[in-house]
Each structure stands twice: as C-alpha cells, then as structure tokens.
C-alpha cells in the first residue's frame, strides 16, 4: 500500500514540477521546478526498488544505483545552470 502512496506522491511531484517548469517565467524558478520533477522521478525509482523486496531482497540495488547517478547528474545540471545564471546576473564582463 505504501508503494502506491509513494508512487502517487512521485506523480504529484512530477506534475507540480512540470507545471512550474512551463509557467514560471524566471530561469531560477524553472531550475527549482526541474529539481522538483527530478525528486518525483527518483521517488518513482524508489518505489520500483521497494517492489523487489517482495522477492525476498531488502531492496533492488539497480534502481538505487540509478537514483544515485541521477542525483549526481541533477546536481551537476543545477550547478551548471546556477553558474550560467550567476554570470548573467553579475556585472557584464567584456568577453
């Protein structure tokens, strides 16, 4: 039952995030919204990992590995976008 609940929570996060990604005009908010979608997707992976517990394992390691990699990628993306944003909002440099 909890798997369904977490799945629904993940779906809700994805939905809210996508809404923000489309509607918010500022780039920073879009970036936050992207992270929200990311959190939702990782939650879905968590649910998937939990379902493997039925097979007697404590949890499926593959989705966990994927989530960790995904978090690293999302972190890198956020850092890159934040750098670009900072360059954009800072004083204009001569290229």
């Amino acid at each position, binding site marked *: 039952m909890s798997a369904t609940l977490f799945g629904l929570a993940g779906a809700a996060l994805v939905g809210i995030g996508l809404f923000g990604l489309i509607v918010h005009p500022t780039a920073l908010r879009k970036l936050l919204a992207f992270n929200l*979608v990311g959190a939702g997707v990782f939650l*879905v992976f968590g649910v998937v990992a939990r379902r493997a517990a039925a097979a007697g394992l404590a949890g499926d390691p593959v989705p966990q590995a994927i989530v960790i990699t995904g978090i690293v990628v999302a972190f890198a993306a956020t850092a890159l*976008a934040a750098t670009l944003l900072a360059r954009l909002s800072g004083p204009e440099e001569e290229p």
Partner: protein
Amino acid sequence: MMVSLLPVWAVLTPVLGLCALLLCERWIRPERVAAPFVGLSLYLSLSMTYQVMTSQAPLVYALGGWLPPLGLTLRADGVGVFLMTLTALVMTGVAVCAWTPSEGASSRGRFSFWALLLALWSALNLAFTAQDLFNFFVALEMLSFAAVALVALDGTRGALVAALRYLLFALAGSILYLLGVGLIYGRYAVLDLAGLREIAQPDTVTLAALALMTVGLMAKTALFPLHLWLPPAHAGAPAPASAMLSALVVKAPFLIILRLWVDLLPLPAAAPQQIMAGLGAAAILVCSVIALRQQRLKLMIAYSTLAQVGYLFLMFPLMPGPAPWQDIGWTGGLLQLASHGFAKAAMFLAAGLIYEALGHDRVAELGGLARRQPVTLAAFAIAGLSLMGLPPSGGFIAKLLLLTAAVEAGAWWIAAVILAGGILAAFYVFRALGHALADGDPPVAPVALYRQGAVLALALCALAIGFVPLRPFALLAIGRPLEALEALP
C-alpha cells in the same frame, strides 16, 4: 559477435585526453595536447569500422566481465561504427579548422574549447555503443553538459541566455526520458535493450514509457515544434562548436529514438509513426521557409538544421518490414543523418571562416567573397548541394531512398514533402550563394588555406556518400536483430 576492447577505448581515449589537458594546462598549448588524442580516436573509430566490416559482426565488451542485466556492455554494431566514423571525421575536420597558430583567442577559451571537444567526443561514442537505457541517459547528459558549455563559450550575454535556455529545455527532456526508464524498469526489471527485446510487450505501461522517452528525446533533438532552443544556441556558439552541435549532438538523441522503436519494441506501422513523420514534415516545410528569410548566415544554417532533422523523422513510417534494417527507408534515413552531418559541419565551419574574413555574416553583404575565398565558398556550395538533395551527393542518395520508400509505401504526402523540402533548401542555399557571387571588394582578413581545405574536405565527404549504391546498405544491418548476451564467448 566479437569480444573487443576497442569500444571501451573509443569512449576512454578522449577522456584520457581531457585528463592530459588538465595536467598540462600550464605548460603546453591545449591544441598540441589534444591533437594526439584526436588522431588516436580517429584511428580507433576507423579500425573498428574496418573490423566490423571484415567480420560482419558487432564488437562487444562486457565491462568487468559482468553480463546484463547487472553489468554494462558496450557494443559497436554496423550503425554504431558508421556513426562513430562520422563523428571521428567531423571532429577531425573541426579540430583542423579550429587550429589557430596565432595567439588571438584568449587561452582560457581555447583550453575550454579543446576540453569540451574531447568530452563531446567521448559522450557521442558512448551514446553510439551503449546498450541499455540508463547508459543512454548518462551519455546524453554528458553530451548536453558539454554542448551547453560550448554554447556559452563566447561568454557574451546572448550566448549565456541561449545556453541557459538550451540547458533547461534539455533537462526537461532528460527528466521525461528518465521517468520512462523508471517505468520500464518497474515493469520488466531489465534495462538492457537485447533483454528487453525478448520480453517487452505493447502494454499500457510500456507504451507510456516509450512515449515519455520518445518525447523527451525529441526535445533534445529539437524536432519541430520543440525547437525553441536550437536557433539561438547554434547560431550563438563559436562556429567550430556550432559545427559539432549541428552535425553530431542533435543526432545522438535521434539515434536513441530510432533504437527504441526498432530494437526495443518494434510496433507495426500505424498512427504513432505517422505522427512522428508529420512533425518531421512540418519541420521541413516551416523551418525551410524561415531559413529562407534569415538575414544572418549562421541563423539560416541553424534553421536548415531544424529542417534537415525533420527528414530523419520521415523514416519511421517508411520501414514497414519485419526487419526494418533491411528496408531502404532505414538506409535512407541513416545516410541522411550522415550526409547532413558532414554537410552541416562544413557549412558552419565555412560560415565561421567567412565571419573571420569579413567580420560579419550578413547574407546580403557577402559580395566579393567568390574572388577572395573561393575554396571556402566552394565548400559551402558543395555542402549546399547535399542539403538540397542534388546529385552527386549523400543528400541526394538519402532523399532518393526515402522517396522510393515513400512511393513504395504509398505515402504520397511524404514524397511531396521530400520534394518540396528540396526546392526550399535550394532557394536558401542559392540565395546565399547568389550574394556571395555578386560584385564587391570588401576588406578581407587572411584565413589560412589549410583551414579552408579542412572545410572543403568535410564537404567532399558529404559528396562521397553520394556514391553509395542505391540499395539497402549492408554495413547498416550488421548486428541486427539484437541478440542477448548469454555468456561471454
């Protein structure tokens, strides 16, 4: 299949080059450090192609001896080595053209350029040899990050805005893709393509996952109408970067879409394929018209990329056979991919040299170029020939094969779009050529002849594809259908 470490080296060599660049940054100029790695990667790609062609079998390596579903495999099949060769030749051309002996550009910018070139190359080789859905994701993210950084390389405000827009939209695409991967794993507990091929069913979850992944990748490949990021990004980046972005980067997500639809879950041709071809057709018609109205050469070329990407999506309804890789639609689409790669790289590099020579790239003020830079202009014209789909060129053969497939399938609207797209492309290419051939005596900065020669060589590669015979191309069918790796041979 043959076990071979070569696919691994193809991915690793550029990364090693990247490490060498970081280590030697203080002492040696970046292009000198990168050059041997560029040469080595080119050699690796060519030798892999040679091996696949002689053995008629894909090269496979299971990392660490772990088999799927737990382990990762790299597998260079016919399509893989074909695209790796395309990548290697384009990258080498770009590298020669970007090799500036003068101390003009800032050293920091040069360092970043060469580092990103190598990063991009590694990511592309990974995308072309990866065999499971998550590995695709990793390759695509590496690709996107390197590409975004290339767009931002100039550091101007416009370039930064374009890069940010590119990054955010690409991220939206990736996250949809990743959600699809999650659904697939939840359904089958397998991510390996060959394994999935055996058990995947066209049920609701699988189809929803496929739709998520496909649309996410469409956003990354800038299929109309999801193209908002491409024109500013490709027109704003430095020309050698634009060449790589337009020629190679948008092709990787396309290849993955193709593999999802052919390798993972072959569906009978129906409405979804028609929708994809419809979007491709809209891209060809709308973006060609807009290319025709651009005032700046690089924007024109960027819109032309959008139109040419549209041609790739026409192939989905044109491979109706049980083995799509034996259909001429498959050969036509992949030849279009390669010939556009060469032609577009040549065109962007030519635009870059024109910019260096004239100090601008306004189409209406190109007069006098024919006399001052005949080699660059010849390269531009030959590349244009391929884009227009006129013989003898790769673009012609590709469009001829797609057209034949469309007529055989009775898809008359696709045939009409292919022909109309060719006419529109001819107009925008001839418009630029016409201005360049006009009178004029502009002040021209000198451009080294070897750099012009590199551009011409790329354009001639696009021309050379025109001599592929008009039939399904055997190389492109090697390694299909996918076979699950049961044990290490």
